[in-house]
């Protein structure tokens, strides 16, 4: 009897504790959510507004007398269909993806060996060389684009998307080489030595041992390359004037502003169609991205 009672009391206590822990967790959730509300509001409000614009009819959009954040006429997909039927939006997406992929590839091809050499091989002057490469990132495009035009012209790539594959690494390589070199420093030297002893050779050791454990760093570099590619405007403007060769940001900003007519709905639709998927991708890779930055910065 006593034993049973004691058991019961213990169960009750446990239950009580669990409930309290649950309540505490719940309280914490609520607090965190509440804390996040203003940030979400700041971050999302303009995006929400862009989304509303993308689905609004034009007449609804410029009506100053109604609440601007909701629909007063039926939402429309017209701005999206306009993008695909009356502009080169399909090409722009392909171009953007192609450019971003190629730029990432070039960046890795240059940045991985470069970063590895700077980080692991104890080269004399490695640190200064690394910084020198990074300093390239400091030169503003506004200064560079005129002389760079000549280089682009020499390759006969002007007015093709490949011109951008050629010039975008000017800002991704410094950034990513530096990041990667930081990342490679975190790989324990023993792994590599073991591979060397196994007769892999230096390149083999790099490819077979260091790269696989550096995936987070490489992913970070790719994400950066992607983002930086999306943020450029000036280079694409001056090197690509042909509509079907443009990347999305340029195409949207040049072909959807016709004189003093802004195709607001299509502009916003065009921006969201690339911005949102990238944001979703980010949320998947954010943890690796974070660990990539961490090692690159402190190691």
């Amino acid at each position, binding site marked *: 009897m006593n034993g049973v009672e004691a058991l019961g009391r213990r169960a009750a206590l446990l239950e009580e504790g669990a409930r309290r822990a649950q309540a505490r967790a719940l309280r914490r959730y609520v607090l965190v959510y509440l804390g996040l509300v203003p940030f979400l509001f700041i971050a999302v409000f303009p995006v929400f507004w862009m989304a509303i614009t993308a689905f609004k009819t034009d007449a609804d959009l410029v009506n100053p007398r109604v609440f601007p954040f909701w629909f007063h006429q039926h939402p429309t997909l017209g701005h999206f269909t306009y993008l695909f039927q009356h502009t080169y939006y399909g090409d722009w997406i392909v171009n953007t993806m192609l450019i971003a992929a190629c730029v990432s590839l070039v960046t890795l091809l240059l940045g991985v060996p470069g970063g590895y050499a700077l980080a692991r091989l104890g080269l004399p002057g490695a640190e200064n060389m690394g910084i020198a490469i990074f300093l390239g990132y400091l030169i503003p495009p506004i200064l560079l684009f005129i002389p760079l*035009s000549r280089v682009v012209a020499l390759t006969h790539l002007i007015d093709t998307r490949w011109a951008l594959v050629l010039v975008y690494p000017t800002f991704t390589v410094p950034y990513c080489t530096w990041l990667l070199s930081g990342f490679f420093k975190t790989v324990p030297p023993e792994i590599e030595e073991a591979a060397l002893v196994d007769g892999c050779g230096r390149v083999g050791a790099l490819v077979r041992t260091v790269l696989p454990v550096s995936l987070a760093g490489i992913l970070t570099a790719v994400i950066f390359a992607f983002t930086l590619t999306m943020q450029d405007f000036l280079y694409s403007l001056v090197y690509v004037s042909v509509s079907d060769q443009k990347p999305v940001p340029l195409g949207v900003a040049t072909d959807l502003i016709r004189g003093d007519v802004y195709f607001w709905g299509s502009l916003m639709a065009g921006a969201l169609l690339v911005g949102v998927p990238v944001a979703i991708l980010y949320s998947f890779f954010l943890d690796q991205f974070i660990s990539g930055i961490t090692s690159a910065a402190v190691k």
Partner: protein
Amino acid sequence: MAQQAKDGCGRRLTRRQFLTAAGAGAAGAAALKLAPWEAGAAPAQIRGTSLRILTWSHFVPAYDTAFDKYAADWGQKNGVTVRVDHIPIDQLPARIASELAAGAGHDIFQMNGQIQTTLYYKNMVDVSDICDRLGKQGGGWIPMAKNVAVVGGHWYALPEFYIPQPVLWRTDLFKEYGLKVPSTWDDLRAAAKVGKPKSHAAGMAISHCNDANHNWRAVFYAFGVKEADPTGKEPAWDSKELREAMRWSKALWSEGMTSEVFSWDNVSDNRSLDSGVAIWIHDAISAIRSIQDSNPTLYNNVNIAIDGLEPRGPAGRFAVVDPTILGIWKFSKNQAAAKAFLEEYGGDVKFSLVESKGYNMPYLKKWYTKPMPSLGDDPKVKLLQDWDKVAYVFGYPGPATAAASEVLSTFVLPDMLARYCRGEDLESAIKWGMGQIKSIYAKYKS
């Protein structure tokens, strides 16, 4: 220096090729006093070549479609593959600068508003022959054409068209408030004063935008302000007239406009008119084209221009227009086709007038005989048929020099006026402006 020499090397071959090729044609043409392409048939030398044209995104989007088709048709007729690229007006200068640095890009390019012929002419093909012929056929060029296309007696570009910016005013509101039909800038100021308290303020941007530059220049010229001497070398802003224009403009702003105008861009005044707010604005007619179908009542209530011209000021009537010109790069490997195209397009003023619905105003005098194509048929825009009498360009009375262009692109005039409107002392605002202008002109003198 080295670069220039290299340029020469890179181009010499093609240029020589071109000269040999063109030489033969030119010799024949000289005998006939005709360019080879004038004879009608396309010269063999341009067949099978390709031509690239860089121009703006027209404020009348339909014109882009028409122009692309025009260029393609011309290409088909002459066996030339033509491609036209359109970019926004604000981005033309960067692209042009970059093309010259690259020595590659388009064959024909447009300058629009920001006219930089004096900077680029050494790299532009002399098209005096074309312009002389077109001038002869077209009854001569209006005086302004020379200011944007001629350097040292040679034509380096084809004056394509210019964009008039008349006053667009609400006849219904004028009637409602018992205002008389306006004729002078003072009439407009009075109307703005009446309209503002009834939330129908007038509007002209006083900000960093192209409209601000043109609109206030129209006012200032009407008060007798001169930007430079007739040669364009010495600035001539600083004057009694400038002070009067400043005082009057501030009064117009404070009586008849809101401070929204300090943040307006090229489109804001259109919106202000289109949403039924503004009693008058001063802008290109594209502002009302957009409501022609969507809001016909409002459209019908907007009148264009004052007495068919600009409003009168103490010194007369002045319109400061947005000029566009087409030039050919010297690095172009297809100058023959480029010239042939320019000559045909430059002569086809009717196409330009009709397809732009009267937005593109010609530089050739002959086309101002009434009724003008398209313009003359439209009860509203037909009032613009005398615009050649008031059309001027920045830098007046001098040509559109590099210095005048920098005064324009650094927004000295709107900034000087904004300072004064916001409460800075008149003399100190002028002193600031004159300091900017003087140092700009000084830089180009050496």
